[in-house]
């Protein structure tokens, strides 16, 4: 029981890494990036090429991919998102979904259907574990992933609240026109924010590749996990994403104990419960749920 609890917490750490980039983009740019999962898978392939084919150490490969994905993010914002968000709320959703379809199938064509893993790149670490009292063994990579989640979230929070760039990003996210009036280069700021979101995706890709094998179409599953963590946690602070990721992991682990195929279903049900609770400001009220009161009409 204790080991299941610990494993759920570590799984939650993984979901938090996955979800941080998505939440960052959603809270600052007001865009849900439907290509988030596909871009993480793309980063994982990049790491695999640099680490596996060119033989670079994983940290070096990660550093290179962070720069690459930052550039991809800036490109994505300048070429696609800035144009799409000029056409209303719908276009960014449609455009990013289209990009995810392109990436998924392109990666299938280039890398084939084989499942890959980054575990060979770290040698012993992939099976090394800490021993806790009571013969409980905890995989070292999972612990490092949880720590990485905390560091990434703390770093982004610090960036947003304490640095000049972070203040610019917040200004652009709150009111683009006013920010532009104050002399902020809104295009550049938005591009940097997207770049940062995609760069954190490299850490998520590392976590994904170390935890398990992935294939070209793995992006949509990662997107759903990340999205569920964000919705369960709620917006406001990135720390809420960590909480949401933990709830998601617990729900999945609990459901897996009840039924062998219940893992994913448990996560989806936790998402639905979160939607229900948020729907009426935290209180269950069947009457307003059925739309019988005016107060509940959409926000």
């Amino acid at each position: 029981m204790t080991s299941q609890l610990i494993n759920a917490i570590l799984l939650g750490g993984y979901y938090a890494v996955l979800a941080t980039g998505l939440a960052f983009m959603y809270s600052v740019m007001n865009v849900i990036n439907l290509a988030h999962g596909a871009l993480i898978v793309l980063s994982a392939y990049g790491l695999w090429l640099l680490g596996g084919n060119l033989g670079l150490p994983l940290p070096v490969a990660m550093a290179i991919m962070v720069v690459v994905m930052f550039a991809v993010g800036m490109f994505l914002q300048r070429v696609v998102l800035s144009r799409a968000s000029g056409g209303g709320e719908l276009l960014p959703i449609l455009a990013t979904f289209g990009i995810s379809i392109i990436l998924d199938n392109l990666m299938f064509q280039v890398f084939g259907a084989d499942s890959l893993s980054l575990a060979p790149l770290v040698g012993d670490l992939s099976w090394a574990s800490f021993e806790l009292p009571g013969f409980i063994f905890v995989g070292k990579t999972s612990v490092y992933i949880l720590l990485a989640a905390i560091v990434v979230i703390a770093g982004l929070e610090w960036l947003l609240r304490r640095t000049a760039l972070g203040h610019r990003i917040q200004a652009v996210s709150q009111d683009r026109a006013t920010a532009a009036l104050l002399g902020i280069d809104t295009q550049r700021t938005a591009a940097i924010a997207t770049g940062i979101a995609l760069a954190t995706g490299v850490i998520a890709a590392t976590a994904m590749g170390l935890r398990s094998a992935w294939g070209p179409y793995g992006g949509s599953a990662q997107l759903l996990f990340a999205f569920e963590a964000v919705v369960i946690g709620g917006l406001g602070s990135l720390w809420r994403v960590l909480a949401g990721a933990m709830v998601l992991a617990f729900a999945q682990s609990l459901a897996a104990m009840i039924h062998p195929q219940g893992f994913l279903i448990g996560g989806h049900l936790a998402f639905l419960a979160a939607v229900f609770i948020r729907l009426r400001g935290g209180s269950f009220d069947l009457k307003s749920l059925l739309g019988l009161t005016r107060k509940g009409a959409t926000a």
Partner: protein
Amino acid sequence: MSTPSLTITRSGPTAHVTMTLLAIAAVAIAVIPFVLGVAGSGRAVALLVYILLALMWNALAGFAGLVSIGQTLFFGFAAYTTIRLSDAGLDPFLAILASIGIGAALGWVTSLFMLSLKDGEFAIGMWVLSSLAHLCVNLDPLIQGETGISLIQMNAYALETRSALILWLALAVTIAVIAAMLLLLRSRTGAAITAIRDDELGARSIGVDVLRTKRIVFVLAAAGTAAAGALWLASASNFQPRAFFGVQWTAYMLFMVLVGGLGRIEGAIIGAVLFFAIETWFGAYGAWYLVGLGAIAVLFALLLPKGLWGWIGPRLPGEAIPTGYIIEKSDI
């Protein structure tokens, strides 16, 4: 001094021509079983299913401003209920009709909580629901996970009879859906829908009940998408959950509506016909074909967000499918 007199009509010559063309197309599709046989009927059903999907996704995204990545929820679930009801002894054709009703009911229940989500959250939230339905269907011992099952009850009908009946049912459903959309758009609710399409905040400020209007469109879209799923099952006769809940269907819907023209019935129909042609010629290219579809959809979203009809429509005299009013002013 002459007083201007106003004549208000709902359709003009363009509409008459379009309606005549649509009627001719309907008759042409109806006689396919006698001319092109079983294979031709199968392709015609595919075309009608694409038109249904495009119309319904367009109604959601174009009219109600609701982008859903998970309409496969209704598509896949209707196929599943058709299998289940047929297995329980219902005639497969009645099972299809019942599944449309179940789809509408599921849509109503879903709308109660999903419509409170905003843009992107609604989009992926629907995907989560579709994924949940997919997982639950996989748990059914009748379906046996991804193994799937055939609609063997259809074998009670001879092959020629069966394929002709499925085609005529698909044609009837498509005509009914187009008629329903026309009636809806020309009604009082239609004015509200058009207002929301053009400016949601503005519509709300002049007293349009946005939530109620969106719910009507959502339930209609659920029923139409369910019809498409049940018909696709009847035509393919094989139910494999992955083939029905797969995200490629959403990519198809997105392509058809974005290329044809968001927010126009004409656009959805053109997009579906175009997609049918592209699929016939390039469908065999597998993943590259999907890369191409995605790329074209993104290019249209960025460069021509109103689609082909956004370019053709304004160049025609009057609306092709009449949903608005034509006001002519003449001096006496």
